């Protein structure tokens, strides 16, 4: 075997032997989102605020929604990193939040959920809803 072939084979073996880390999957994330649907929807405010327009939004800033003082004062801007941290342990990140939910412990599930939310936010329906908001 030529040296470059050996290198390629070694790299392939190392890659195959590495722990599997599946890419975030929006379809799996949609299934995770089903857990949120007692309180949340993409395009309507319920017990929790709507999720269309979530990325880049300041936490506690949906007009007319009755947030906890803790969330209003959190100064969080929602993005992949802040969502991942919050979804892992909501009440540890924002003590006093109305989102009284233990969190999603599995990082892969959180990544899938964030991928779904991102995909949903990219749909024309969600974009149109966000645009129509005051």
């Amino acid at each position, binding site marked *: 075997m030529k040296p470059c072939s050996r290198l390629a084979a070694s790299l392939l073996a190392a890659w195959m032997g590495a722990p599997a880390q599946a890419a975030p999957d929006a379809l799996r994330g949609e299934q995770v989102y*089903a*857990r*949120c*649907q*007692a*309180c949340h*929807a993409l395009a*309507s*405010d*319920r*017990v929790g605020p709507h999720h269309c327009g979530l990325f880049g939004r300041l936490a506690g800033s949906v007009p007319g929604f009755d947030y*906890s003082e803790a969330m209003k004062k959190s100064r969080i801007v929602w993005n992949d990193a802040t969502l991942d941290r919050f979804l892992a342990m909501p*009440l540890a990140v924002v003590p*006093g939040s*109305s*989102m*009284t*939910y*233990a*969190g999603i412990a599995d990082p892969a599930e959180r990544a899938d959920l964030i991928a779904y939310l991102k995909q949903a936010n990219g749909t024309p329906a969600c974009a149109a809803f966000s645009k129509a908001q005051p």
Partner: protein
Amino acid sequence: MSFFQMPAPIAARRLFLGQSGLLLSGTAVALLSGQDALAAKSDGATGNDVQILNTALGAELEAIAAYQLGAESKLLEKPTLALALTFQGHHKEHAELLAKTVAKLGGKPATPKPSYDFPVQQLKSQADVLRFAARLEQGAVSAYLGAVPLFGNPDLAKAAASILGDEAMHWAVLRQAIGETPVPSAFVS
């Protein structure tokens, strides 16, 4: 007994209170059965507990409104309508007890919103209504599951778990009614 022949809400309430009294203990029993003096002596409940109960109460109030929407949609056949009203009755029982408990712990119970923004345009058949209800019940199961470990008072956690079990049964029955596997897995999440 068929799920179409469940007891009326008032009977369900008696059943709930009776069985709760037998199965639950400590503060939860005291709070849920109206024994203020006993509840006042108990400790362990935190401000967090009040918030957890109030968030759950908000979701229960919305579920009551959602079942009302389904009941008034004229899309449900008679036995299914009876089923929906029975489940709505359970949610009323949950809401009533949660509100009382919040008040007894010194909180201000959440109240129904003046209106709810339900996906009315998407409800065109009985199956649509049942799917909508099933999604809410699934969400409720997850919400209670995510709330149970947060309670400072284990008796309140137990009481919430008891409600979780009821909502899980609703979800299973609704799945069965729309032709899905009623219990899709060994665990809920």
